[in-house]
């Protein structure tokens, strides 16, 4: 049998998706380096293919190129309550990298909480080209192609580019967030936000995480609020519970 006789998909991706996504990859590397510069840890999950998460961790912690700095990255293994483990370990300002299908509920559950936890989220999306609404969304979505070996190339590149950014210390300082009267930004507008319930005080109030910080939320107009629920909040009042597959 010749290798060229192998069924499609046996050998993997052709690089086209990452060629197209090079600009997004570069922007993600800049953000990742800036987060590392402020003390972030990179948390990695790859439900159903956790060897990828471990590979990302070893890539950053133990660089293959001598002289490159060790950067904090940890894999969150599949198994008992991955979401609960992440909730305990992840700190505001950290970065959460997920590898998998944008339609994977386990991936979506984690990424949906990025805003509430105050973390930057990256999705290395494996599968069909993203089109239309998918279950998972992230601050940075890199489509790696239909085969998960595209993810290997993507996180290798992310590591390489992140270390290039470290050679430019002036660029590691993120510009201050722009916030003017004319230009509404998410932190000061009255736009709806997604928060995660930490504890329910009574039928009327709950404590929820928003941007990594606890705040009081009025839950009198939503029923059966439980810790771990995501709420859509507007001006301190919960309007609805965000529906999730496992809820």
């Amino acid at each position: 049998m010749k290798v060229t006789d192998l069924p499609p998909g046996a050998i993997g991706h052709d690089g086209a998706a990452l060629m197209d996504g090079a600009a997004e990859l570069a922007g993600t590397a800049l953000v990742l380096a800036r987060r590392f510069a402020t003390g972030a840890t990179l948390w990695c999950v790859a439900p159903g293919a956790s060897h990828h998460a471990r590979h990302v961790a070893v890539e950053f912690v133990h660089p293959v190129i001598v002289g490159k700095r060790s950067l904090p990255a940890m894999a969150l293994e599949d198994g008992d309550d991955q979401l609960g483990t992440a909730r305990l370990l992840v700190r505001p300002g950290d970065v959460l990298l997920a590898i998998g299908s944008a339609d994977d509920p386990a991936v979506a559950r984690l990424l949906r909480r990025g805003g509430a936890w105050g973390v930057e989220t990256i999705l290395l999306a494996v599968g069909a080209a993203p089109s239309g609404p998918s279950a998972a969304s992230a601050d940075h979505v890199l489509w790696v192609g239909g085969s998960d070996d595209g993810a290997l190339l993507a996180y290798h590149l992310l590591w390489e580019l992140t270390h290039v950014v470290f050679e430019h210390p002036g660029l590691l300082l993120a510009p201050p967030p722009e916030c003017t009267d004319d230009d509404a930004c998410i932190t000061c507008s009255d736009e709806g936000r997604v928060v995660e319930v930490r504890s329910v005080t009574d039928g009327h109030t709950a404590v929820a995480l928003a941007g990594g910080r606890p705040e009081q939320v009025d839950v009198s107009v939503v029923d059966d609020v439980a810790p771990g629920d995501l709420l859509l909040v507007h001006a301190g009042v919960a309007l609805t519970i965000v529906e999730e597959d496992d809820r």
Partner: protein
Amino acid sequence: MNDAPPEPTSFLYPFIDAEERDPEGLLAGLVASARQKVGASVRLRTQTLAQCGDELSAAGAAMAARFARGGRLFAFGNGGSATDADALAARFRSPPWGAALPASSLVADRSVITALGNDVGFDLVFARQLIAHARADDIAVGISTSGGSANVLSGFTAAHRQGLLTVGVSGYGGGSMAAGGDVAHCIVVRSESVHRIQEAQDAVLRALWASVQAALPAARDGARSPRRRGERAGKGGEPAGESSTRRRRGAR
């Protein structure tokens, strides 16, 4: 001297001196670099699979013969190659298509790895496990980007001594893995970049798995037929691919 101008120290920090605050130039460079690396990665994979096609087919046929006789696969490697070993074993056990086959990763049990590493030395973490688990019909697949990882090499030595079929995936010029006599089939990804080597090795491991699947039906027929088993006994019970590879190695 108090009113002397301060010593200029800006030469120590050329980027700060340049007040590099606009990331656009850097981003353009990163995009170009990413595209160049994607191209290099895809080219190396294509070249490697073309150059190693015959060796991959021979290794796949020999592995299929072992599986048909009830053999099992043990995969091992360090760091990123350890994750490759995990993924390879998982692919054999839970295939996207084809037959599910018995395979284990020797890096999966951290209790065993740390016990062996602490008590007898990290060079023996795979060799000791193979001595404990392996039988003569089994298969050892070792992965190393340098071809020189001491524990992978000692794993192959133990495996070869016990009569296992040994398949190695190496990089750079092949290293000791390709030069030594313990590895029956050694597939070398010829590159100087660890990252590009790993990406091509990933393709090699997928192709190896696929070539086992392709060879398996014939290998199972051969293992079932008493007449054909008698024929093969004259060649040491190994399929033609493995024997011819051994002859080639001996000739070098």
